């Protein structure tokens, strides 16, 4: 049952913040024919990848004249190739006015972290046309690499994953400490201390095969061994933060 139903007030929808990684088309100049031929060329290298994707036109490196920008043509050409232009990023006031005129969303200028999508045939086979999932999504929004530990984390040792998840394929012994900016996974008994979301990520979780921990903490909210014994002790559980409380739930066998 959802929360809204419980409270008795039923809203039509709810707004949530979402971050989606998208492809940006970085436009240097606009010429109708050159645009379509370049687009066709890119698509031929990775047809599956471009099918029905949303696209942002980035104007940050645009060098041509504003008057040459024809968003209706850009949208039309992209539509013919099953690409949906949804907005523009960056650009000067004139360019943004043109974009608004074409009913495109205006996004603030982005930083320079975008990575070039290499659609070279060496990595994408043309046969991928049937595959619904693009093979190269990860080149756009690269998550922080998880740190993977294969050996037991022994008493007195500390393992720290400052950017992402921490995955341990061995026991975490009493007197050991494992810390991660993201989630902590322990495929073995967790007997020491596990701290997830140490930079404040409240969505971070701790997973373990057997909960025998001295302490579990998520984003600074913690429970010590004494308070963990009543629920899921010595069984496979996940621990997450709900309303500032650590909640232990069993890892059900599928």
């Amino acid at each position: 049952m959802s929360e809204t139903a419980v409270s008795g007030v039923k809203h039509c929808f709810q707004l949530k913040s979402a971050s989606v990684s998208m492809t940006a088309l970085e436009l240097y100049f606009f010429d109708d024919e050159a645009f379509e031929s370049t687009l066709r060329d890119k698509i031929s290298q990775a047809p599956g990848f471009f099918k029905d994707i949303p696209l942002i036109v980035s104007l940050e490196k645009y060098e041509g004249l504003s008057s040459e920008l024809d968003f209706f043509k850009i949208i039309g050409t992209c539509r013919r190739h099953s690409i949906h232009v949804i907005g523009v990023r960056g650009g000067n006031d004139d360019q943004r006015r043109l974009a608004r005129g074409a009913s495109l969303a205006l996004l603030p200028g982005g930083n320079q972290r975008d990575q070039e999508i290499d659609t070279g045939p060496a990595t994408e086979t043309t046969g991928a046309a049937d595959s619904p999932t693009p093979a190269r999504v990860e080149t756009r929004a690269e998550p922080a690499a998880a740190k993977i530990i294969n050996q037991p984390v022994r008493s007195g040792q500390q393992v720290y994953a400052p950017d992402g998840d921490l995955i341990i394929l061995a026991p975490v012994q009493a007197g050991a400490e494992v810390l991660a900016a993201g989630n902590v996974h322990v495929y073995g008994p967790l007997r020491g201390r596990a701290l997830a979301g140490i930079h404040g990520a409240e969505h971070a979780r701790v997973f373990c095969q057997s909960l025998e921990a001295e302490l579990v903490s998520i984003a600074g909210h913690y429970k010590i061994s004494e308070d963990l014994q009543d629920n899921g002790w010595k069984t496979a559980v996940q621990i997450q933060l709900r309303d500032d409380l650590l909640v232990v739930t069993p890892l059900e066998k599928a």
Partner: protein
Amino acid sequence: MARIIVVTSGKGGVGKTTTSASISTGLAKRGHKTVVIDFDVGLRNLDLIMNCERRVVYDFVNVIQGEATLNQALIRDKRVDTLYILPASQTREKEALTKEGVEKVINELSERFDYIVCDSPAGIEHGALMALYYADEAVVVTNPEVSSVRDSDRILGILQSKSRRAEMGQDPVKEHLLLTRYNPDRVDRGEMLSVADVEEILAIPLLGVIPESQIVLNASNQGLPVILEEESDAGQAYEDAVARLLGEEREHRFMSSQKKGFFSRMFKGG
């Protein structure tokens, strides 16, 4: 090149020196040229258990500091002639064991011996770190009780992070669990951790289980490595452990309560 075996535990009084004496004697008895080094500078005991305390002239620290040669300091065992003892100094500080000094001695011994057994002091300080630094293999001596298991876990972590093999990125030190002072009756009564408990917690292969026995104490007091008490449970258990250390497959013994005889069952109601 010799194989370098450290006998270590973290916790004191669990049987490191007893084990060092028996394992080195066991290796030597099988014809391997073996030297056992006492790293417990300031609290030397190995010479007592090996019954050579009256023959100590020069020691490990003298050799490191160039005051004596190895030949002057090495003591040949009177019972097994392929066994030598390098005693610790009783008057120096553990800091006298420098990394370079220890390396020099170990390299020199390495050319002459098949096995170098390093008897580590308790703790995780300098002396213990020096004893394990050059090890190829480690015999982690553990008693079946929680604090000993915890300390063994700590020392295993140090073996995997601070040994030479760890620092050089070579194959990790090979770990062996030796459970000493094991009393199956007390395990049955729930007063002691079982072999399975300890194995489960430490997650390293079991080299052997040495039963708790008065014979171990008697042998130590007489300056006799218990492995030479060939009729005893403890002696045979050490013999098995040495065999396994050399790669032999042997079934584990002395892990369950002795079957009581007919009369003791009748009269003790057991």
